C-alpha cells in the first residue's frame, strides 16, 4: 500500500513537473545503418525519464522532451543502442547499427545458451537468413560450405534425397554418421523415410524459412551434454520467435527453374550402329558363339539404323526443365510480455527428372508469454504435409543396377530405337523389353516412358511437431525449465507398378502400399543456477533429465496380378495378396545430465558436462553409459598486460581454448540387436520357425574420445576474425556387423559387436573479414577450410576388411591403415598397342591381358602364355574416398540498395569410383560414351579404350571394378550466387510496405573439376559409411535459377 502511494506521488510530481517546465518537441527518423531503411518500432526514450515513444512504420518519431533533459536513447532489439545529445536541435536522425554480438555471437548448446565469449568448445552457427531463400527441400541441403568442419554432399538431383552430412569426418562404420538433429529441443528422425523410389527426407517437413539459426556443435565440449547421441556432432535448429515491437508481416517467395547439369556425351544413332557392328565383327573373329546366330545376319551384322533413321535423345525423354515455386508468409511481433511468430508456407517444386516433385504445405505458431515475473510459458507447434513423388530413378541407395532405373536407361538405351511407335503407342515388346527396332541384337532394357507415365511412387508425410515448455525463476539465479515435445508423423507410401511394362510386368501389375505411424516424444527438465560472487567469479550450474521414446509401427501389403489390367490402384482387384512393409520399432533413451560453467572475470573459462545415458537398443547389462567432457579457455586479450600493450591496437581478441570429452553413438541399426531370435515364415502354407538373428548380450556403447584445441583471433576491432581448431576424434568400441564366415551359417553372416576403432584428425580454419566498409559500399568475406584425415585402426575378426557394396558390385573396402570406405580395385596398365587388349595387373603384380570370348585363352601373359583369370580378388589398389580438404568461400557485397552474394565451395583429396563410366564403355548392346570412338583399331594404336568385342564386360570394368574408373574428386563450385536490390522506401508511400527486395539467384552456376562423371559431389549409396565415393548410374545434380522477392510490412 505504501508502495502504491509512493508511486502515485511520483507520478503526480512528474505530471506536475511536465506541466510546469518548458518542454520541446524533437522529431526525426531512425534508419538501419546498413541500408538506410526506416526502422519501425524503435524505442525512443528521454534518458533518465520514463518519457518515451516508438517509431512508426517508416521509422519516424516525434517526442516531447522535458526541458531539463538533454539526451535521447534509441533502443531496438538486435541493434546497438544509440544515445544522442539533443542540444538545440529539433530534428535528430539516427542510423542504428546491427549488434553483431547479440545477433550472431550466441551459441545454442542444447540445454542452454551461451555467449560466444564464454563458449570454449567448437561450434559454428548459421543464420536462418543464409538459407531461407535457397531452392532446397530441406534446410540441411543449404548448409554446404557454410561452416568449417562440416561437409555436406547432396547425393544427386532426386528431390528431397537426404544429404550426406559429415561433421569432422566419418565417425562410425556401421552406425549412422549423420549428426543428431535437434529441433527446438527434440531430437528428430533423419534418413529416408520412404520404402519406394520417392526419396523422403523427413527434415524436409520443416520450412527452412521458419528457422532462426542452426548451431553445429562439433567437439565433445559442446556435444557431450548430448552424451551417447553426439558422436557425429549435433545440429541444433532453433525456429523463429517474435520480437518485441510492432507486428512484422513478411512474404518471401521465389520461382525457379532447373536443368540437369553435366550429362555425359553419348553416341548418336549413326555412331552407335557403326561402333556396335565393329564390336560384333571383332567378336565373331574371336569366337562365333559370342553372338548367337539369331542375333546377326549372314554378313555378321547385328545393328541397323531404325525406321526413318531415328536418333533418339534419351536424355530428352527423361529429363526436363523444371519449374518450382515457394511462398512463405509470416506475422511476428510482441510486447514486453508476449511474443509470437506465425507462418504459413507452400513449396511446390518439380525436379529436372520428369514426374519428380516435392510439395510441402506447412504452418507454424511459436509463442512466448511471460505470465509473471517468475513464470514464463513457451509453445511451438508446426503442422506440415510433404508429398514426395519420384519415378524409379535407380539413384537411391541399393538401386543403381535396377533394370528400370531411369538414370541408367537414359545412358544405355540405343539411340537407333524410338520411344514410341508411329501410332503413338509405346515401343515395347510382349516380353518386357523395348522394341529393338531393326536391330537383330537383342535389346533387353526397358522403355522408360511407360515406367514414368504409368507407375506411381509417392511417400507423403503428415507431421505435427509441438513443444510446450515453461521456465520458473525460483529465486534470483535459479531457473527450472521443463519442455515436453511431441513429434507425431504418419508416412503413407504408395507404389504402383503397371502390368504393361517395367518392374510390374512380371507380376501382372503390383501395388505396394504401406503406412508408418511415428510417435516421438521427449521430455526435458533442467534446473539451472547462475550467480556471480566476489565480483569476478561467474558460475552456472545445470542439472536435468531427458527422456525420449520413439516408436514406429509400419504395416502394409503387396498386391499382385491385377484382375483387370486397366486398373492402376492398390484398391483395385488382384489375385495375390502378400504381406509387405510390416514392422515395429521401439527406441527409448533415459538420460541424466549436468553441466558446470565457470569463468573468472571473463578471462578464464572452465566448463564440464556429464551425462548418463540408457539406451533400449543395447544389451540389458550394458545399456547404461557415462559420457562427459571438459573445456578450458583463456581470453588473453582481456588481460591487462595485453590491453596495455601496443599489440592491443591491432589485435582486438585473443582466445585459447581446449577441450576433451567422451561421447557415444547410440544409432544402432536394430532396436533388438542384442537378442538372439527365431523368426517365423512359411514352408508352402505351413508355419515355420527358424534361427534368424545371432544376438550379442555384451553389445555395448560405441564411444568417441574427442580432443579439440582452438585459437580465436580478431584484429582491427574485430574487422578481421580468425578461428582455428585442431581436433582428434578417437572412435572406440565401434559397433560392427562383424562379418562371420558364411560357412558358419549365422543369419545375415554378421553379429553386432563392439570391435574396431578409428580416428579422425584435422584442422579447421575460418577467416572472416570486412575488407571494405564505406557506408554505401561494403564487402564482407568468410573463408573456411577443413583438413581431415581418417584412419581405421582396428576391425573385427582379426582386422578382417569389410567390403562396401554398391548393389551388385563391390568397389569399396574398409581395412586397417586406410580411411573408411576406401576404393579397392584391380590395377590395370593401359591397352596393349599390339592387340588392343586391356592389360590387368594380378595379385602377384604380373601383367595379364584379356581377350573376351577367348575361352581357355581369354587370360594370357603378354608373351601369350595362358594365365589365371584376373578377378575381383586381384584388387590391389586402394584410394581414399573421403575429402582430405574442403570448405567454402563466401562473399557478400552491398552497394547502396544492391546486394550481391557469391559462395564458392571446394573439396578434394578424395577419389571417386566412376562406375557409370564402366557402364558407358560396356560392350554389350548398351549405348556408349563418345570417348569409345578413340578405341583401339589396328596394331600400334595408342589408346585407353580397348578393341571393342561385343559382349565384353570385363575390359571396361563392369565385371569387377578397375582403376581406370577411379578418378580424383577435386573441385571448385560456384555453389550459390544472389544479386538483390532493395527498392527505395520512398516508392512505397502510404502502402504500408516497409521493405521490398527482389533478387535473382543461381545455384551450381559452374563447376571446375577434372572429374569426368556427372558430379564429384555424388553419393550413389547415400549416407553409407562403407561404400562412399561411388557414382553408379545416378542422375546428375541440377543447375537452378531462381527469382524471388522479400516483402515486409
Amino acid at each position, binding site marked *: 500500500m505504501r508502495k502504491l502511494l509512493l508511486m502515485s506521488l511520483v507520478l503526480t510530481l512528474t505530471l506536475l513537473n511536465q506541466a510546469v517546465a518548458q518542454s520541446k518537441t524533437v522529431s526525426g527518423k531512425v534508419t538501419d545503418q546498413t541500408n538506410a531503411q526506416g526502422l519501425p518500432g524503435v524505442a525512443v526514450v528521454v534518458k533518465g525519464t520514463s518519457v518515451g515513444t516508438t517509431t512508426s512504420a517508416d521509422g519516424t518519431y516525434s517526442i516531447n522532451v522535458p526541458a531539463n533533459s538533454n539526451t535521447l536513447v534509441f533502443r531496438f532489439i538486435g541493434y546497438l543502442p544509440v544515445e544522442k545529445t539533443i542540444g538545440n536541435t529539433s530534428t535528430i536522425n539516427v542510423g542504428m547499427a546491427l549488434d553483431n554480438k547479440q545477433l550472431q555471437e550466441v551459441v545454442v548448446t542444447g540445454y542452454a545458451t551461451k555467449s560466444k565469449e564464454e563458449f570454449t568448445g567448437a561450434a559454428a552457427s548459421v543464420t536462418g537468413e543464409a538459407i531461407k531463400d535457397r531452392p532446397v527441400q530441406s534446410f540441411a541441403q543449404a548448409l554446404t560450405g557454410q561452416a568449417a568442419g562440416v561437409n555436406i554432399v547432396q547425393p544427386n538431383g532426386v528431390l528431397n534425397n537426404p544429404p550426406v552430412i559429415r561433421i569432422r569426418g566419418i565417425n562410425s562404420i556401421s552406425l549412422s554418421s549423420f549428426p543428431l538433429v535437434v529441433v527446438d529441443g527434440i531430437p528428430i528422425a533423419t534418413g529416408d523415410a520412404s520404402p519406394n523410389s520417392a526419396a523422403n527426407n523427413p527434415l524436409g517437413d520443416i520450412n527452412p524459412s521458419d528457422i532462426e539459426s542452426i548451431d553445429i556443435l562439433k567437439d565433445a565440449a559442446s556435444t557431450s551434454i548430448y552424451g551417447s547421441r553426439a558422436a557425429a556432432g549435433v545440429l541444433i535448429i532453433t525456429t523463429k520467435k517474435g520480437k518485441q515491437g510492432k507486428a512484422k508481416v513478411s512474404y518471401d517467395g521465389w520461382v525457379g527453374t532447373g536443368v540437369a547439369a553435366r550429362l555425359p556425351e553419348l553416341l548418336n544413332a549413326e555412331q552407335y550402329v557403326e561402333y556396335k557392328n565393329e564390336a560384333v565383327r571383332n567378336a565373331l573373329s574371336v*569366337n562365333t*558363339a*559370342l553372338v*548367337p546366330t*539369331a542375333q546377326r545376319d549372314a554378313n555378321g551384322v547385328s545393328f541397323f539404323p531404325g525406321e526413318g533413321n531415328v536418333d533418339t535423345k534419351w536424355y530428352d525423354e527423361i529429363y526436363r526443365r523444371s519449374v518450382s515455386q515457394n511462398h512463405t508468409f509470416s506475422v511476428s511481433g510482441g510486447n514486453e510480455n508476449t511474443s509470437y511468430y506465425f507462418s504459413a508456407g507452400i513449396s511446390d517444386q518439380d525436379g529436372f527428372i520428369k514426374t519428380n516433385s516435392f510439395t510441402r504445405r506447412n504452418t507454424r505458431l511459436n509463442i512466448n508469454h511471460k505470465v509473471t515475473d*517468475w*513464470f514464463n510459458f513457451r509453445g511451438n507447434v508446426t503442422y506440415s504435409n510433404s508429398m514426395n513423388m519420384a519415378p524409379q530413378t535407380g539413384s537411391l541407395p541399393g538401386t543403381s543396377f535396377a533394370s528400370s532405373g531411369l538414370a541408367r536407361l537414359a545412358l544405355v538405351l540405343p539411340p537407333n530405337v524410338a520411344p514410341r511407335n508411329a501410332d503413338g503407342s509405346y515401343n515395347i515388346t*510382349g*516380353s518386357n523389353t523395348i522394341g529393338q527396332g531393326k536391330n537383330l541384337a*537383342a535389346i*533387353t532394357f526397358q522403355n522408360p516412358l511407360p515406367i514414368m507415365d504409368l507407375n506411381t511412387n509417392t511417400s507423403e508425410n503428415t507431421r505435427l511437431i509441438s513443444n510446450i515448455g*515453461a521456465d*520458473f525463476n525460483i529465486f534470483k539465479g535459479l531457473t527450472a525449465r521443463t519442455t515436453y515435445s511431441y513429434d507425431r508423423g504418419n508416412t503413407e507410401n504408395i507404389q504402383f507398378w503397371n502390368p504393361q511394362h517395367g518392374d510390374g510386368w512380371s507380376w*501382372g501389375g503390383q501395388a505396394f502400399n504401406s503406412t508408418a505411424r511415428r510417435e516421438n516424444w521427449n*521430455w526435458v527438465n533442467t534446473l539451472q543456477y547462475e550467480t556471480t560472487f566476489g565480483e569476478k567469479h561467474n558460475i552456472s550450474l545445470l542439472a536435468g533429465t531427458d*527422456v525420449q521414446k520413439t516408436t514406429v509401427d509400419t504395416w502394409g501389403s503387396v498386391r499382385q496380378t491385377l484382375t483387370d489390367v486397366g486398373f492402376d490402384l492398390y484398391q483395385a482387384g488382384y489375385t*495375390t*495378396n502378400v*504381406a509387405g512393409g510390416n514392422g*515395429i520399432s521401439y*527406441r*527409448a533413451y533415459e538420460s541424466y545430465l549436468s553441466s558446470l560453467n565457470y569463468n573468472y572475470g571473463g578471462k578464464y573459462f572452465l566448463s564440464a558436462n556429464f551425462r548418463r545415458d540408457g*539406451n*533400449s537398443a543395447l544389451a540389458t547389462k550394458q*545399456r547404461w553409459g557415462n559420457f562427459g567432457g571438459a573445456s578450458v579457455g583463456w581470453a588473453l586479450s582481456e588481460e591487462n598486460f595485453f590491453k596495455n600493450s601496443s599489440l592491443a591496437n591491432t589485435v582486438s581478441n585473443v582466445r585459447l581454448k581446449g577441450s576433451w570429452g567422451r561421447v557415444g553413438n547410440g544409432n544402432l541399426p536394430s532396436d*533388438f540387436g542384442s*537378442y*538372439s531370435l*527365431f523368426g*517365423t515364415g*512359411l*514352408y*508352402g*502354407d*505351413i*508355419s*515355420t*520357425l*527358424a*534361427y534368424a*538373428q545371432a544376438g550379442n548380450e555384451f553389445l555395448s556403447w560405441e564411444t568417441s574420445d574427442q580432443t579439440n584445441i582452438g585459437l580465436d583471433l580478431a584484429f582491427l576491432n574485430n574487422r578481421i576474425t580468425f578461428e582455428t581448431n585442431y581436433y582428434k576424434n578417437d572412435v572406440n568400441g565401434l559397433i560392427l556387423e*562383424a*562379418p*562371420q*564366415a*558364411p*560357412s558358419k*551359417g549365422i543369419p545375415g*553372416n554378421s553379429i553386432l559387436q563392439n570391435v574396431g576403432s578409428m580416428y579422425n584428425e584435422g584442422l579447421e580454419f575460418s577467416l572472416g573479414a570486412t575488407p571494405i566498409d564505406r557506408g554505401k559500399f561494403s564487402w564482407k568475406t568468410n573463408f573456411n577450410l577443413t583438413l581431415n584425415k581418417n584412419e581405421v585402426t582396428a576391425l573385427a*575378426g*582379426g582386422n*578382417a576388411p569389410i567390403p562396401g557394396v554398391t548393389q*551388385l558390385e*563391390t568397389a569399396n573396402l574398409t581395412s586397417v591403415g586406410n580411411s573408411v570406405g576406401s576404393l579397392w580395385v584391380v590395377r590395370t596398365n593401359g591397352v596393349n598397342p599390339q592387340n588392343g587388349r586391356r592389360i590387368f595387373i594380378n595379385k602377384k603384380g604380373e601383367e595379364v591381358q584379356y581377350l573376351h*570370348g577367348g575361352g581357355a585363352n581369354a587370360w594370357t601373359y603378354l608373351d601369350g602364355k595362358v594365365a589365371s*583369370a584376373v578377378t*575381383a*580378388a586381384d584388387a590391389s589398389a586402394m584410394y581414399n574416398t573421403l575429402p582430405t580438404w574442403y570448405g567454402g568461400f563466401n562473399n557478400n557485397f552491398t552497394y547502396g540498395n544492391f546486394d550481391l552474394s557469391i559462395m564458392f565451395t571446394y573439396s578434394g583429396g578424395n577419389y571417386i569410383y566412376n562406375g557409370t563410366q564402366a557402364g558407358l564403355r560396356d560392350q554389350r548392346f548398351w549405348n556408349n560414351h563418345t570417348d569409345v570412338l578413340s578405341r583401339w583399331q589396328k596394331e600400334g594404336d595408342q589408346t585407353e579404350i580397348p578393341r571393342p568385342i561385343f559382349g565384353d564386360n570385363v575390359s571396361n570394368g563392369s*565385371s*569387377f571394378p578397375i582403376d581406370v574408373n577411379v578418378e580424383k574428386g577435386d573441385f571448385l563450385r560456384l555453389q550459390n550466387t544472389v544479386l538483390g536490390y532493395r527498392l527505395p522506401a520512398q516508392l512505397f508511400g502510404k502502402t504500408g510496405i516497409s521493405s521490398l527486395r527482389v533478387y535473382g539467384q543461381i545455384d551450381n552456376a559452374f563447376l571446375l573439376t577434372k572429374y569426368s562423371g556427372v558430379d564429384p559431389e555424388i553419393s550413389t549409396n547415400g549416407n553409407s559409411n562403407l561404400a562412399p565415393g561411388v557414382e553408379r548410374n545416378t542422375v546428375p545434380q541440377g543447375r537452378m535459377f531462381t527469382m524471388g522477392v522479400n516483402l515486409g510490412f
Partner: protein
Amino acid sequence: MNILNKTNKKYLLRLALLSIPLAPMMSSCADDFLEAQPRTSVSVENAFDTPERVEAQANGLYATIKSGAFLGGRYQVYNDVRAEEFINRLNNGVTGAWAYAHTIGGDDTYLANFWITGYLAINRSNLFLEGLDANATKIDPAKLQQYKGEAKFVRALTYFYLVQIYAKPYAIDNGASPGLPLRLKGETGPDNNGMARSTVAQIYAQILKDLNEAEAELPSNYSSGSLNTTRAHKNTAIALKTRVYLTMKNYAKVIEEGNKIVSANAPFTSPNRVAHALQSNIKNVFTNYTTTESIFSMPMTNNSAPGTQNQLGYYYNGSPNGNREYYLNVNATGIKGIYTNSQFRDTDARKTDLTATISGQRYVTKFSGVTPFTDWVPIIRYSEVLLNLAEAEAEVGSQTRAIALLEAVHKRSDATWTYTGTTKTDLIDAILTERRIELLAEGFRTNDIMRRGLAIPSVGAGAQIPVADSRYTFPIPTREYQTNPLL
C-alpha cells in the same frame, strides 16, 4: 518466527508447481522403459516351448533350402545353363549370364547365396539337433526321432548339393580333392570362423552317415500326399542315397538302395512304404504336385513364392509373365543341345507338352509362366530314381533290368520308342541321354556331366571345359575367404 512468511510461501508455491511435471516423469521411467522386447519374433530361450514351435522349426529347415536363392529355383537354373541345353537371351548377370558364360567370380552375389543359404540350412539343422537333445524331455519320443531324421536329411541334402558345385567330382580321385568346411556344430556366436576344407570323401561320408541315420529315424510316411512330397520320409532318404552313390560311382550300393524302393520288374513301383510310381502322363507331374512320383519337392504358394528372378517359369517360359531368359539350344552345328537329339523324338510328350515355340525360339514350358510362379520345384522324382538304378544296373548289374527301367521312363512319354542299342556303352549313353530329356530344366545337367568326370560342353563359353579348368567348379565365395582364415 513465522516460517510461512510471504516470501517463503511464494517459494513453496513455486516448488509445488515444479513438482507437478516431475512426478509423472518418474513413473514413466519404470524399469521396463528401456526394455525393448521384439514382439514379432521368438527369443532363443522360448523356441522349444511348445510342440507347435518344435514342429515349426522342423519345417523351418525345409523352408531354408526352399529359398528361391537356393533350391527353390536358382540353383537348378545355374546348373542347367552352364552346359549345352540352353542359350541365354538377355545377357543379364542377375539371371545367370555369368554362370552361362563361365566368367562368374567368387564375388557374385547369387553364387555366394548358394553357399550362404546352404550353410544357413546346415547351421539351422545343427542347432535344431542340439536343441532337440537339450529339450528331449519336452518332446514326444516318436516326434523327437522323426525331427532328428529330418534335420539329418536336410543337412545331408544340403552338403550334397554344395559339394557338387564347389568341389571337384568325387569320381575323378575318389574324393581326394578339397571339399567343403564340414560344419556339424551349431554356431551362434562370433567364434570358430576358421575352418579348413575337408576332403570331398569326408563330405560324402558325412552325407551317407546322415542319410543312413535319417532312414532309420524318419517315418515311413505322412498323413497326406502333400506331406509325403514336402517332408522327408524313409523313401526320401533312400532315393537321395541312390543319387549320392551314383555320384560316387558306387553302383552296387545304388542297386542295393534302389531295390528298397523299386520293384524287381516293370511296372516299377516302390514295394515299401509310400508307393512311388510313375504317373501315366508326365504333364500331370507339373500340375498335380503331390503324386507318388514326386518324392521330394519344394512347395510354393502365393505367400511363399520363389521371389523375383528366382522362378523357373520366369527363366524358361514366356507368356504372360515369363521372361524367356533362356531358350533351348537347337544349333545344328557345334555344341548341340538335347532338343535335337535323335532319342528326343517329335512324338515325345516331353517335347510336345513341355516345350513350345515362342517368338521364334523353343522354350521349356514345364513350369508355368504365370506370376507369382508357384510351380513346385521338383528335387527328387521317381523317374530319376529309376534312371539312377538303370545306370547302375547297366554299369555293373543286369542289362535287361537296365533297359526295362530306361524304357519305363521313356515309353511313358513316347510309347512307340524302343531301345535299339547293342553294347553296354550304348546303353549307358542312352540312359544318360534319357536323363537329359526327362530331367531337362530340373537342375541336373552339369552335375550329371561332372560326376562322370567329363568336360562341360558350354554354349555360353563357346568351349569344352575340362576337369582341370578352374571354371569347372564354381568358385567359393570371396566372403568365405575373407572371413575364414583356415580355408
